[in-house]
């Protein structure tokens, strides 16, 4: 008797998409095919894609230190609701994850909650102050593989160079919040909308200057280097050229940068559209969509950044940056870009799992693999109206999306069942 039988879906297998059933037992995939025998539970996957659960490499869980915005319990609930089976939480907590104790705290909390895999990134520099390297080896021993000062750029070139050398030697990833702070004193994209509103802008060159510099440093001191939340089209050409030269470079884009442009700010200056980097032009949106399709941008990351109502409900320029997104990221990507299933699962699961070092996630479905799966209906329409997150700062709330998670399965257990899944 199988634990679960997923019948009638299109399944991402080693040989590509196939119309097969998937049997799950003992937390693993045990068989693909037809007539796989009885199961305790049968899930109707007709019309849906069955693939590896989504993996987010850019989640702000806010724990420890920001629990009024979010914590590991609420963020993992949001994650599995969005089809995610693993998340990598960002280290800009209070205290920051710059040594073993905080890393261990986050990882143990994640395991204790037990809803999905929780990994944690470490900071590049102590206290994210940009002055001295974090306890890289201690963090490494806790299992940390990705290092970032996210929220702030590693501005000092010498510091970054040292980080690339040290982390590169261990085989880890340096992920850069690629926005020059001196060019990012504004509140939104610098362009005709900011000019019309009289708001100080953040030019696209705030991103490209950092990416260009960093790629020169990576060429000089090889290390896996990851560009976080690419928003400016100008970054894409730089990344493409670096990849052509064989540099170990990857890049991510967020759902919101695939969906919205700066004109959203014009009507009503709603702080729900405030994030870093800012929403850029329609041309930039087109460019990041195309780069995600072509693979120059490797993966989608949510940059799920919860803020409480009282923090976001202020004038635009005074609001903190960020939006939440775990629950509708897949739907937003599907709506905005419309990837074929092979690419969709690559960008949403396989590539991010590889980056974060989540070995149990992001694999094509095959017997013997851990059953970390998502059943995603690419044609279901819905309107997000609530959230499992503690915060609700998202422009997708109330907006029609196409594509919805039916089931999220973590280690063979159903962790989320969509509203209309057993209709």
């Amino acid at each position, binding site marked *: 008797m199988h634990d679960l039988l997923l019948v009638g879906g299109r399944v991402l297998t080693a040989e590509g998409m196939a119309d097969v059933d998937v049997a799950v037992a003992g937390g693993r995939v045990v068989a693909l095919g037809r007539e796989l025998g009885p199961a305790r539970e049968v899930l109707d996957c007709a019309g849906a894609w069955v693939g590896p659960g989504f993996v987010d490499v850019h989640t702000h869980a806010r724990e420890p230190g920001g629990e009024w915005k979010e914590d590991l319990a609420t963020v993992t609930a949001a994650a599995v609701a969005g089809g995610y089976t693993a998340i990598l939480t960002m280290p800009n907590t209070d205290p920051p994850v710059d040594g073993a104790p905080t890393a261990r705290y986050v990882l143990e909390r994640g395991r204790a909650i037990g809803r999905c895999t929780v990994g944690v990134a470490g900071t590049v520099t102590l206290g994210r102050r940009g002055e001295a390297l974090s306890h890289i080896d201690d963090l490494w021993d806790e299992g940390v593989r990705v290092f970032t000062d996210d929220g702030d750029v590693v501005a000092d070139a010498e510091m970054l160079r040292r980080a690339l050398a040290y982390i590169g030697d261990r085989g880890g990833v340096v992920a850069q919040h690629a926005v020059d702070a001196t060019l990012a004193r504004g509140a939104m994209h*610098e*362009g*005709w909308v*900011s*000019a*019309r*509103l*009289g*708001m100080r*802008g953040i030019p696209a060159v705030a991103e490209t200057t950092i990416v260009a510099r960093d790629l020169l440093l990576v060429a000089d001191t090889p290390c896996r280097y990851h560009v976080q939340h690419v928003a400016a089209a100008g970054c894409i050409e730089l990344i493409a050229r670096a990849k052509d030269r064989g540099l170990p470079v990857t890049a991510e884009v967020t759902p919101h940068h695939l969906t919205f442009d700066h004109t959203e700010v014009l009507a*009503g*200056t709603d702080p729900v559209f405030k994030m870093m980097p800012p929403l850029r032009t329609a041309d930039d949106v087109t460019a990041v969509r195309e780069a995600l399709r072509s693979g120059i941008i490797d993966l989608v990351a949510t940059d799920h950044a919860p803020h409480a109502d*009282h923090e976001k*409900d*202020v*004038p*635009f*320029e*005074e609001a903190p940056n960020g939006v939440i997104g775990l629950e509708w990221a897949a739907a937003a990507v599907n709506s905005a870009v419309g990837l074929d299933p092979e690419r969709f699962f690559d960008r949403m699961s396989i590539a991010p799992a590889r980056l974060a070092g989540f070995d149990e996630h992001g694999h094509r479905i095959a017997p013997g693999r851990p059953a970390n799966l998502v059943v995603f209906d690419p044609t279901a329409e819905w309107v997000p109206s609530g959230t499992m997150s503690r915060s609700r700062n998202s422009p997708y709330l109330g907006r029609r999306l196409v594509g919805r998670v039916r089931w999220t399965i973590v280690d063979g257990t159903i962790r989320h069942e969509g509203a209309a899944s057993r209709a």
Partner: protein
Amino acid sequence: MKSFLDSEQLDRPTLERLLDDADRFREVLERPIAKVPTLRGKTVATLFFEPSTRTRLSFERAAKALSADTMSFSPGTSSLSKGESLKDTVQTIAAMGADLLVVRHRSVGAPARVAAWTGLPVVNGGDGAHQHPTQGLLDALTIRRALGRVEGLRVAIVGDIAHSRVARSGVFTLATLGAQVVLVAPRTLLPVSVEGWPCEVTTDFDEVLETLDVVYLLRVQTERGGATVFPSVREYLRRYGMTRQRFARLGPDAVVLHPGPMNRGVEIEAAVADDPRALVLEQVTNGVAARMSVLYHLLGSPEHA
């Protein structure tokens, strides 16, 4: 009209109606008893989160000339310094029974947020470098009263356009009323883009000078670190200042406006500032009348009943 938030939202009939009534209020202001009972029993609260004396006084004068009661708020004496949020502050003031809020704030869109939070009519008294719509209205009133019309006039707005809410409101108000607006400034004081602005742009003041009916000089914010955006005050005056020589090249009926406070010797030479065709004090009086018109329309409109 529920609130008066930005000049872009105003169509020509609305603007003309506001100007027509402002003309009536100018007459009221010239009466021996310069006060009418129209808004008796209404309370206007002026919330100036950014220091400003003249604009707040102008609004208070306007409210009082309409017999409204006024309350005023300034951040120096408030609980904002005790960490109270803007939303809590304005909701507190609304709960005291204000009927209309005049809001000035350094952040773009703050007055619109206040309107959403309180449900009250809000007049934008200036938000960041975004909009200052009653200034746009009083400037249009001043031009119309001085030259008899706005339609077809050529108006130059000269100076720090990039950081000016006066310029943003001026461009849209005057263009909506049919004026041809030209922005004049050094490259560093022009916005990064004027896409969608109904105006021309030039960096050469002298080239357009003789075509102008109205020259609108903006205050040059020397305290904003003028030296970083133009080489020196002397050079600014030479290329963009309203000198006696430039004033002499204007047509005989052309007028000069300035939102105040003036930097004599920077954007305007003293002799020009004191010329009868410099309408600075006229703007101040018209400011009261224009604000009376706005208050009257907002508090007297049926949807407010």
